[in-house]
C-alpha cells in the first residue's frame, strides 16, 4: 500500500513538474506546480513529517501559488514567449546538462553516504511525543537563533516587497494631495 501511494505520488510529482516546464500558458504552469506541491506534501506525510506536510500545503500550495496566480492576473497572460531558439545550442545543451546532473545525483546517492551519524539533534519520534512536539522542541532550543533571524528576514522581505511594488518616484499619498488641491480650485 505504501509503495503504491509512493508510485502514484511520484507519477504526479514528475508529471506536474514536466507540466510546469512544458505548458505554454503560465496559468497552467501554476496549476501544475500546485499538483507537484500537493504530491510532495503527501510524500512528506508518508515519511513521518506531518507538520512539514501541513506547512507545505498551507504556505506553498496556498499562499505561494495564489501569489503566482495573482501576479499572472495582474500582468496579464504573457502568450508571446517565443519557444523558438534564441541561440541554436541552448536547449540541447540544457537537456544534456540536466541528464548529466541527474546521473551524477543518482550515482552519488547510490553509493555510500558521507554521514553515518544518527540522531545528532534528537530522534524523529519518541514514544511520548509526536512529530509536532519534537519539531517544536528542536526549533525552540537548538535552532532558536536561526528562528529569530528568520523573523528578521521575513520583515525585510515584506518591507522590500512593498517598496519595490510601489511605483517609483511616487510618494505615499502624493497624488491624493494633488487631487484635493484640484478640488479646492
Amino acid at each position, binding site marked *: 500500500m505504501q509503495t503504491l501511494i509512493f508510485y502514484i505520488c511520484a507519477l504526479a510529482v514528475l508529471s506536474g*513538474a514536466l507540466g510546469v516546464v512544458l505548458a505554454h500558458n503560465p496559468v497552467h504552469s501554476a496549476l501544475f506546480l500546485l499538483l507537484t506541491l500537493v504530491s510532495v506534501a503527501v510524500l512528506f506525510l508518508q515519511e513521518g513529517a506531518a507538520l512539514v506536510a501541513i506547512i507545505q500545503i498551507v504556505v506553498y500550495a496556498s499562499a505561494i501559488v495564489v501569489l503566482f496566480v495573482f501576479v499572472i492576473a495582474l500582468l496579464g497572460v504573457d502568450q508571446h514567449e517565443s519557444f523558438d531558439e534564441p541561440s541554436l545550442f541552448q536547449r540541447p545543451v540544457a537537456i544534456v546538462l540536466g541528464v548529466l546532473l541527474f546521473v551524477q545525483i543518482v550515482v552519488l546517492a547510490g553509493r555510500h553516504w558521507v554521514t553515518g551519524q544518527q540522531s545528532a539533534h534528537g530522534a524523529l519520534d519518541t514514544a511520548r511525543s509526536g512529530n509536532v512536539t519534537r519539531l517544536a522542541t528542536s526549533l525552540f532550543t537548538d535552532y532558536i537563533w536561526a528562528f529569530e533571524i528568520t523573523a528578521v528576514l521575513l520583515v525585510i522581505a515584506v518591507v522590500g516587497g512593498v517598496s519595490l511594488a510601489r511605483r517609483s518616484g511616487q510618494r505615499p499619498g502624493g497624488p491624493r494631495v494633488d487631487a484635493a488641491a484640484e478640488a479646492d480650485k
Partner: protein
Amino acid sequence: MIAVARLTPGYYLTLAAALFTIGAVGLLVRRNTLVMFMCIELMLNAANLTFVSFSKALNDISGQVTVFFTLVVAAAEVAVGLAIIVAIFRRRHHVTADDLNALEG
C-alpha cells in the same frame, strides 16, 4: 513484482533528483520569468524532499527543521521576486528574460 519492494530512502532520493533535474532544465530553457520562478520552486521542493528523506533515514529531527527554514526562505524569495517582476513589468511591459539586457555592456 515491483510494487512489493520495500521503500528505501533511495526511492525518495531518486525522485528528488529527477524533480531537481526537471526544475534546473526548465530554468535554463524557459524565457518567461514567472515560469522560471516556478522552476526554482521545483528545485527547492526537491531539496526539501531530500532533507525529509534523510531525516527519516537517519532518525534525526534536524532535517525537518531545515525544511521549515527552507519554506520560510522560499516564501520570502517569492514575495521579493514577484515584486521585482511587477516593477520590471511597469517599466518594460513584458517580463521575458531575453529582453532584460539593460545592463549589457
